[in-house]
């Protein structure tokens, strides 16, 4: 969670979305990014994180004190104009090129698993300037190729794939998992291991990844959460609803 919050830069307009990213935004805003603003597809813009616990972005504490309460299409307008600096997307499956599947495992006509769908995920993946995904690190989730691309990352991994296909934003920056942080080279392509979390190893991360994972020469241990980050997590998720 602390690692995800570090992707937010001060001053960013962040498309927050649902679930864990709500907490990542709150942590960033209360540590290193005090002037970031958050957008929520339900139709909200905020600066201060909500004062109360949020199970969803539509909960009343997220509306009280908002900078803007509006319709979804107005929020999407900002993203379609390229004004959203960073988005967060959750996923069930991600592949080596950062494509996300939240729709179907197996044949869409007769799926082995029907997942809930895009929500705003595909919109964020295509239109925000850059984005990050958060995922439990398991072989069945980090796969060679996803069976269905709900939210496109770097497509087939070829240089300039997004631009050639008319996708507006720059695509995924990082896959943040429970074991480490995978990043993408400038301009797209294949994910590589940039850091592993304390208590884990490069070998373990590679073993739990469903493809032959590239490892950065400068791979290192992920810095542990700071006191400010931990304090913010405890403040915004006091009962550990999202973090246990």
């Amino acid at each position, binding site marked *: 969670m602390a690692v995800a919050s570090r992707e937010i830069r001060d001053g960013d307009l962040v498309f927050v979305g649902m679930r864990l990213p709500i907490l990542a935004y709150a942590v960033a805003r209360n540590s290193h990014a005090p002037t970031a603003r958050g957008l929520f597809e339900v*139709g909200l813009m905020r600066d201060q994180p909500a004062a109360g616990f949020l199970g969803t972005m539509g909960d*009343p504490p997220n509306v009280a004190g908002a900078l803007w309460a509006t319709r979804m299409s107005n929020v999407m307008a900002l993203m379609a104009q390229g004004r959203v600096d960073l988005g967060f997307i959750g996923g069930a499956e991600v592949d080596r090129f950062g494509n996300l599947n939240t729709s179907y495992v197996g044949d869409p006509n007769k*799926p082995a698993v029907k997942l809930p*769908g895009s929500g705003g995920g595909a919109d964020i993946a295509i239109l925000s300037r850059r984005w990050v995904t958060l995922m439990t690190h398991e072989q069945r989730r980090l796969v060679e190729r996803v069976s269905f691309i709900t939210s*496109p990352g770097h*497509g087939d991994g070829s240089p300039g794939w997004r631009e050639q296909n008319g996708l507006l934003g720059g695509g995924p920056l990082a896959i943040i998992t429970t074991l480490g942080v995978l990043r993408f080279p400038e301009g797209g392509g294949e994910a590589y291991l940039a850091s592993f979390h304390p208590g884990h190893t490069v070998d373990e991360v590679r073993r739990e990844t469903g493809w032959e994972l590239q490892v950065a020469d400068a791979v290192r241990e992920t810095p542990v959460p700071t006191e400010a980050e931990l304090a913010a997590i405890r403040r915004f998720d006091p009962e550990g609803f999202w973090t246990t």
Partner: protein
Amino acid sequence: MAEAIERFVPDGASVAMGVGLEAVIPFAAGHEIIRQGRRDLELIGPISDALFDQLIGAGCVRRVTAAWVGNVSEGLGHCYRRACEQDVPRSLEVHDHSNFSISLALWAAAWNVPSLPTRTLLGSDILRTNPNLSTSDRMVQVQAVRPDVAIVHVQRADELGRAHAWGPLGITEEAGLAAERVIVTCEELVDPEVTLSDPNRILFPETKVAAVVHEPGGAHPSPVQGHFRRDHAFYRDYAAQSRSAEGFEAWLRKWVLDVPGRSAYLELIDLDRIRIKQHRLSAPADFGVE
């Protein structure tokens, strides 16, 4: 409520619901649809926090046209999974969208054009599975989606159909404009002088609104700004019980089939636990003329 559903939601209807996303979901109306045994519905919405899952599990639905169907704080929609994976209780046709594209599909219908262009969904396999999306010249054309009826829950309305809502609106306005007609359910039924004192806050033209139902607590377990917080525990229990088809049927009996209507349902809930008690009024707007 029973009369509004009976008259305006026939078998085979296309119905937009949950257009405020996680808040103000018209659960009471959805449960009445289930009690009346409606069949072959098309459900239209952005995300659906458990209500679509319940209607699917109850066998009311032929097609879902939506961006996301599940349980927002808990994850997967188990009835949705059973329908798509095992045809239980029946097979289900899915027209996948993103949140942006379902909004555009409704705006297209609202403006009476066949489709609207957008860059969203470029590169997504959703283009392969939804026949109402096509691409040309690196643009996606989103075909209009025209619901027979949109059902919305609001904080207050008058009996002539002027609905006041506040908080984020999601895709409420385009759903109401696109639909042939609108059913409004409300926490408070107020005099026209209240709604007309602030015409900016009126959601739809009154000519679209076919029925107004005074149904306090009609959005539980979803939140209503100024009235109720979200009942997270209720969603958690639903997720646990709906994991099996038998569990879902027991849940449905207790909360839908064995209660005659919303007031009986609310007697089963400790509403005080989620009632909002500290009010936070906005400053009034001055509509003075002379």
